[in-house]
């Protein structure tokens, strides 16, 4: 039986973090842009979260919400840059994504560091336990709504169309840039929100060295392992979030270094990715056909 404290203070916040970040990432990638900036933008959003909790207080009186709002804004800003540049110019998604990752690490440190030095811990600006339960409900509702949006509505169809084949989609009458911008706003808003919860409800501490811990990559792996499916993401996020958040407890009870527990989610992500891609499940969870392919709009862009 899992103790309630562990559940509410660690497992649930970790689940919500991973669920929102991987959900946003999935929606964004469905529009056909490979998001290799995820880890950087995740970290930049965490820096924005603690800065926002103080900076935006005059406008938004509840610190954690103020933090989340700034995280969402910073994340959207970086995401829009990536989305528009990659739709406007036929350049490598991988190169832009990774470059933006490093850039965003720098942005994250600059946003978060001075606040961290001035105020120390994040406890006083974090979400409460009641908030966590509310956030849990909200995330699940967002997930289900997005599932319906993607599968049933014209916007969802347009996002999938642009990810499958931007040229055909454009010939059918879709404005590729508009749809990718919408997907970027939805996706990066969720990624920013999730990243803010990483700091404001799960870790409750911020350190600039967190940029090398790779939680953003773990969310990336979560999305891959769940085939970018909003419903499948729930169990996978719970599993990875659960493992990532209980690593110290696992290491204490099994008497192994914490690195063993840190290792497990990455290993599990790798193995799950392999299982999905080497079995029949590949068809169901296949990536969008044009994911990561530079979009040549012919010479119009010049």
């Amino acid at each position, binding site marked *: 039986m899992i103790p309630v404290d562990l559940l509410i203070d660690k497992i649930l916040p970790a689940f919500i973090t991973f669920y929102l970040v991987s959900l946003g990432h999935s929606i964004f990638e469905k529009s056909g842009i490979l998001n290799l900036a995820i880890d950087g933008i995740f970290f930049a959003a965490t820096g924005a979260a603690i800065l926002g909790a103080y900076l935006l207080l005059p406008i938004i009186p509840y610190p954690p919400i103020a933090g989340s709002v700034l995280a969402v804004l910073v994340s959207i800003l970086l995401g829009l840059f990536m989305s528009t540049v990659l739709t406007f110019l036929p350049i490598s998604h991988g190169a832009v994504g990774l470059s933006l990752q490093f850039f965003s690490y720098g942005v994250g440190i600059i946003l978060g560091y001075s606040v961290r030095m001035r105020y120390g811990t994040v406890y006083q600006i974090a979400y409460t336990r009641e908030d966590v339960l509310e956030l849990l409900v909200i995330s699940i509702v967002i997930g289900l709504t997005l599932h319906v949006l993607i599968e049933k509505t*014209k*916007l969802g169809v*347009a996002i999938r169309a642009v990810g*499958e084949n931007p040229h055909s989609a454009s*010939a*059918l*009458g879709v*404005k590729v840039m508009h749809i990718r911008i919408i997907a970027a706003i939805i996706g990066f808003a969720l990624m920013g929100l999730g990243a803010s919860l990483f700091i404001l409800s799960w870790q409750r501490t911020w350190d600039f060295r967190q940029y090398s811990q790779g939680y953003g990559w773990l969310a990336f792996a979560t999305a891959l392992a769940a085939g970018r499916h909003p419903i499948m993401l729930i169990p996978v996020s719970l599993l990875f979030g659960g493992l990532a958040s209980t690593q110290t407890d696992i290491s204490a009870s099994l008497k192994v270094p914490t690195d063993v527990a840190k290792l497990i989610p990455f290993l599990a992500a790798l193995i799950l990715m392999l299982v999905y891609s080497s079995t029949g499940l590949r068809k169901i969870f296949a990536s969008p056909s044009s994911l990561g392919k530079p979009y040549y709009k012919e*010479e119009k862009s010049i």
Partner: protein
Amino acid sequence: MTSPLLSITGINKSFPGGVIALDDVSMEFYPGEVTAILGENGAGKSTLVKILYGIYSPDKGDIFFQGKRIVIGSPIDAIKKGIVMVSQIPQLIDRLTVAENLSLSLTSVGLFESMKNVRRVFKEISDKIGIKINPDAKVWSLNYTQKQLVEIARAVLLDAKVLILDEALTYLPVEERRKFYVYLQRFKEEGRSIVLITHKIPEALEISDRIYILRRGKVVGSLVRENATLEQIRELMFGEAAKLITYERFSNPYEIQVGEPIIQVENLVVEGEYGEIAVNKVSFKARAGEIIGIAGIVGNGQRELLEALVGLRRIRSGRVIIDGVDVSNKGVGVIREKGVGFIPDQPLRYAVSAENTIVENIAALFSRQQVVINWSSMIEITNKLIKEYSIYPPNPNIHVKLLSGGNIMKVVVSRELEYATRALLAYNPTRGLDEATATFVRKKIKEKAVGDKVSIVFASEDLDEVLQLSDAVFVMNRGVLYGPFDPVSTPRSKIEELMVM
């Protein structure tokens, strides 16, 4: 006389690097008329279409719609004006349903609306024009004709004033094409305008009221159908190259010996992209020096059959025997090692590496088993091929991406013919080439079969090509292979019937 519905005046379009695609092109499209734009590959047809549909913008010149000057900035602008295009490759997205595809063009459907209304409207239109397609079917499950029907239904749904058919019906057999003519006739009667883009002269003569001929980006002829003759159009389309072009059958100078066949295919079953049966119990034999031509509409299993023969696709059951050895599922490497050349569909995409030089592209095939490449012998082969096929520029160390499409195709064809000591497998070996080069390539293929006793199996969507080259004709329809038929004695109509039944 009525005024034109759509007209263009003085359109110029050049691409960076100084290539002039369209040079002072003016055309008028009248309501209630079919206007054909004829020209061979590279004449500027597709650039013109892309300008009309808002994919390109012209450097100079104006577009007038119902007498007013308009700017078409994107396909959705064109759609809103009532200009709708159906192209040769259906612009539908495979993993979406029919209704989902259609919803993307309908500005009346809101972003957060479901597919309910689209489904209803599509049903209404389908009943009206008499097509039976389930709006919830995924597009990949439809065949080529059905996809084109969906495109036509889309045009009706969008209340198209101008319907552009960009080679959309060109590769359909006459019978199937005539089915579409019924819809087009109704379109005309309603005062709409149809623009038919094609490189096949008979197709243009069949239905159009007015014909424009494009050559090297210029309008070289504007004819009314009644006054047009095939010879005259041919002269205008090809200019001085006309004498190099022939559709005469290449006959085999002697009888194919009744010896052991090189390629034997027995009861072959192959799966398609989505696990469906793409090739269904196909059997045939190809002897030394014999050319087997497989006719059929795109998507009837020809691709899968050829890919299975060369080892690119898994064989579910049945056997492929080359030179007496069972090579089923042995992989491309083993099959190629037996002296099998292969020209896939879209060779520029699948049969060449643009970032590498000509000699590297050739060495990749001829030296793939060596550890260290003998470059001097590779240069020798390359120079020989460059001379024989007059590849331009004649420099083995130039990057393939700097060559024109026709010259890249020559690199591919020459390399594979040189390599093919026993057999050659090919799919649409001349697609995308200008007619003079296409004739040249077909001649080379024939020479190879006759001269080196190589057995050749090829599929083509162009029935003229199949009839010109083959010693035995087969027809492939929904994975089943019919034949062999004698290309001389079998009536064309019988073959076309088999293609569509």
